């Protein structure tokens, strides 16, 4: 895997965690 692709994949995974936390929190609270 090229270094550039490796960087992009890790960045996307971390961004996914951030967006996931945001969405999960919002909908978890909405479900209460």
């Amino acid at each position, binding site marked *: 895997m090229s270094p550039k692709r490796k960087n992009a994949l*890790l960045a996307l995974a971390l961004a996914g965690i*951030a967006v996931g936390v945001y969405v999960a929190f919002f909908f978890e609270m909405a479900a209460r």
Partner: protein
Amino acid sequence: MSTVNPTRTHDHHGHDDHHHGPVTLADGVWPWMKRWIGTTNHKDLGTLYLIFSLTMLFIGGVMSLVIRAELFAPGIQFVDPGFYNEMITLHALVMIFGGVMPAFVGLANWMVPMMIGCSDLALPRVNNWGFWILPFAFSMLLGTLFVSGGAPASGWTMYPPLVMQTGNALPLMVFAIHLAGISSITGAINIVVTILNMRAPDMPLLKMPLFVWTWLITAYLLIAVMPVLAGAVTMLLTDHFFGTTFFDAAGGGDPVLFQHIFWFFGHPEVYIMILPAFGIVSTIIPTFARKALFGHDSMVYAVASIAFLSFIVWAHHMFTVGMPVSAELFFMFATMLIAVPTGVKVFNWVATMWRGSMTFETPMLFALGFVVLFTIGGFSGLMLALTPVDFQYHDSYFVVAHFHYVLVPGAIFSIIAAIYYWIPKWTGVMYNEKLGQFHFWWSAVWINVLFFPQHFLGLAGMPRRIPDYAVQFTDFNMISSLGALLFFLGQFVFIYNMIMCMRGAGKKATGRVWEGARGLEWTVASPAPYHTFEQPPKIDPRELA
């Protein structure tokens, strides 16, 4: 310094300034502006972050002077209570999200690539975007002073139902926080990817400098909790405009829920503002003690432990809202546990100095000021952690004294120390040492005059966030306000000293700058070339942590 290792190359990022130096003002105003607006260079962006941050620290500082002027004497002096509350709110938001956090991101931008031997951050265009969001976010936030209903006046904690009384400023504040959050998250992602993927091949994780380690852990905290804040303020927005009732008891919601969500973000946020400071102090003290950092690995584990514990202590900010006793006990003991890894760090700093060959240049003075004064803030934090007594301290000026001790002579002293420490590397000239020493002693005296009396005010029962108070609190308030004004004025000496460096006035700095400095950043010339480590360096083991 280094020999080229031809087996590894770092990717280049497509911008066309690899083969010549940066555009300067001599090339024309427009090309110069385009350079700064479009730059993807980590050193340029580090400079932009630091200039932005210092601007915000001065704006927030002026707001604090409005607060302290009003509190100089009992009664309403200068501003009406509504505006006073707006100052309280904006001072905190500007200092936290506009001052301290961008300053640490700026330092990371400048130093992390140079400390780990890579050419730039992993995602340079994202880095540019992350910075340029901030001026818009804070123009919007400060713009709320001019909208109908005034700026937010609920305090930076934005507790409902009070925050629902905000006028047109509410959506602007929420959007500004979203933007600042996106900026922090992009910065954090960039730092994690850079550290994990782009270190020089000879640098294993546990051999990284402490500043890099503390930033790696801070970046994970940012990625984990900034979205929680974003979620909380989005819920405020939907409660206000779209008929949801997350925090409205009349619709089945719960205002206390907001406090839990907010502090689930808010407590790790406290460590986001102090862990990089620990990294800075752990870098500076060994340099001026001319000894390796005592217990490097234990420092890393201590920082990781503090970061973990930061997620399970949030309710100590809200002991008085009503919680099961078992929960209060859990949060009390978990909070007290933080003293263990923090103690490890303080003892390690002291052990590093023990029998060291110490000198006291300005960065070292600010680092030592940090160790002593941050520890005072830590001890008052331990007092606040005790549930039964917190019922007395809660929402009093004692809390204001506590968190200002950890944030001003804590976080901000570390930022000042870092700038003095690295500015010879950035500009190629030494700052004026005499002015630096004056700046430290002036700041160290007046910061204590400013904040120490606030402990007494709080213990005597003066509440926080009020523009007026009972007459028995007058003397300590006068002393505190005097300290605030004199501390603030002293910071112009710092700005003058830094501007002189940026203009190249002063003694030329050597590459190593400080006799006891170790690390890759000192192996390049001063000022650091526009591009460093385009090929990964072969590292002399003596430069490793």
